[in-house]
């Protein structure tokens, strides 16, 4: 097990995942990325992130299902989840799935950092 990190970014679009990682590292966050959703549980165990930043529509998997499963699992339900989507109207769906926060794509860097601070601050 490695040292616990701040944020795990799960997005099946590698460019976006990398961009977010770059952006957050600029602000001194410890960040890891994950492209394949099926490795999520292993990755979470490996990195022990404080926050999971996750896209809603992933290849073959619905992020809302993942979110609901994590929130129901006592091993992971302390992880703060921020869901993001390029569907502007998806915030309510994500909230229903148990997501702590929502941000729509594309986003302002300032908004993303503010949300992350809020999520980590609430732990």
């Amino acid at each position: 097990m490695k040292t616990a990190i701040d944020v795990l970014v799960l997005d099946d679009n590698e460019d976006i995942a990398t961009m977010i990682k770059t952006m957050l590292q600029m602000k001194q966050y410890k960040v890891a990325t994950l492209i394949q959703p099926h490795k999520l549980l292993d990755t979470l165990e490996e990195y022990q992130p404080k926050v999971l930043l996750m896209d809603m529509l992933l290849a073959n998997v619905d992020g809302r299902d993942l979110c609901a499963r994590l929130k129901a699992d006592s091993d992971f339900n302390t992880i703060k989840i921020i869901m993001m989507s390029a569907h502007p109207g998806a915030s309510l769906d994500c909230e229903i799935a148990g997501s702590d926060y929502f941000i729509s794509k594309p986003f302002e860097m300032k908004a993303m950092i503010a949300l992350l601070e809020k999520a980590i601050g609430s732990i």
Partner: protein
Amino acid sequence: MSGKRASVLDSFSFLDVDKGFMARAILEYPWETTALGSIESWHPNLKSMVQMILDNPIAMYIAWGPEHTHLYNDACLSILGNRHPSSLGKTSQEIFGSDWENVQPTFDAVMTGGSMMVHDFKFEVAPHTSGDSNYYNLAFSPIRIESGKPAGMLLIAKDVTAKKRMELALAQSNERLSFALEAAELATFEYFMKDDSILANELFNSWFGGDGAPILTLEAWLEKLAKPKAALVAAAINDCSKGQEGARFEIDFETPEGTEKARKEMRLKGLKLPALGDRSPRVIAAIEDITAEKLEQRKLIESEKRFRLLADSLPEFVWIADAQGASIYWNKSMLEYTGLSEADVKLRKGISIVHPDDVEANMKLWNNSLLNMKDFLFEHRFKSKEGVYRWHLSRATPQFDDEGNVQRWVGSSTDIQSIKDKEAHKDFFISMASHELNTPLTTVKGYVQILRETYMNGSDDLLNMSLKTIDKQVATLTKLISDLLDLSKIRMGSLGLECTEFDVRKMLTEVVCSMSHSYPDASIELGRVETLKIFADECRISQVVINFITNAVKYSHSPAAIRVSSWIDEGQLIFSVKDDGIGISAEDQKHIFERFYRVEGKSEKTFPGFGIGLNIAAEIVKQHNGKIWLESELGKGSTFYFCLPVSSSFTLGK
């Protein structure tokens, strides 16, 4: 008892003062002032007659002497009414006045020795008023003295008012009946079994009589009817005549096509009556001409048949409901689709085919249509016999009778599943397209911001300017994509609201903050703002405010001064965004909320956008049951407003 009265009573003990009211009245009357003289001097026959009438419960009256001085008993009081006591001791002439001439011959005849009966004599209870009349049988007889000559007369009155009134009522009701028969154009006849004779009214004879000659026997009438129904009519009358009292029958028959007379259809109703008084048992019957009614009925059946034939040949569902809204007919394709039978429809099983999620709204709208007699239009899912739901668009319209009452509802339902599928497909496509466009934009925007952050403090102006422009244009592109998505949602009516409770001040503060950040050159400030929580779609409401602010910045001289306010007025929460920009002409104001409408600026300045922002804003406000408007003057600036109803779902903040 004392004085004179006592002595009178002693002398004339034939009158017992306790015999009644009139006994006392006669005793106390000053007879000495009349032609009869004092009671002591009365003829013994008069005395005994007076005694007799006072003893009698029947109304009796005595007129004595040549002047006919009048006396009467208690029973006469109710007949005389207010003529008592003025009649007592008076002469006929005094009593009858000008009528005496008419009455005198009767009196004279009796006084010369004859008895007389007068039947049903009408006598007003209170003369010269509009009160009831009573009727009496009067018996006049002379009262003789020793000489054998009549010295007075006795009048006995028997009240026959009740009998007379009944007779009058009967006569009146007979009159009414014959009037009703005439008005209803009913031919009537009575058939007497004992001699096969019939007694008919005029209409009967004019309908069936050859040349106005009355028809006198049943047989003669039956010959006038078309065969073979005539035999059935004969049998019906025959059965009835042999049946019990009160036996009834009804039968339709026809008259044959004659040279002059057209074929007629008629309905005969009959009733057996028992023997009554001098009338032997008989059958009374009424005949009505139902030719026109039958014709209408046949026409209706014919048109109904044609309608059903047509309706059953249509692939669309056609249905009919009664005035109360219950289905009475479904066409063939509807029955086939649902697998229900005609009986099921009449048993009100129709609603079972409507999707459970649609039933409530369906019934609400349908009842509303029934109540207001307004057309029904609704989209709902109908279950097929295979258990599959398909979307249908139903319309129904009421049919009125001449009095404006709803007779029935004629409805149709069209399968719109393919349209719904296409809409859903299109909706999905646009939604996916917007998602796919936003995804690359996310990366671009992200890296631009990373680069700007990295080189913010550098001295490379070209790099800074380029990054700033890319950032701005990416923002524009994002806005365009989201507007297009909204527009498509509005067009499909699927711009759903996600209402939550939120703080208006907090929402406006955030919007103003973020807009100030986006437009650092503009001065955007918060004016008066209510501290209030409302139940609405926060995201959409801030979208409207952002749209107002964006427009204000776009159409203002630099640097723009914009003020955002919100307050409650007359039950409405009003939002306003005021600028000091170029203003909007009256002509442009009319169209500004229309789709794709763009206010053209000065030639050197163009304004980016599809011109759909305000249209979307208007739609969002409309969905919140609010209103949107503006006030503007060219060169002086504009204020855009929208308001939301402050309903029970709004709560004042602490």
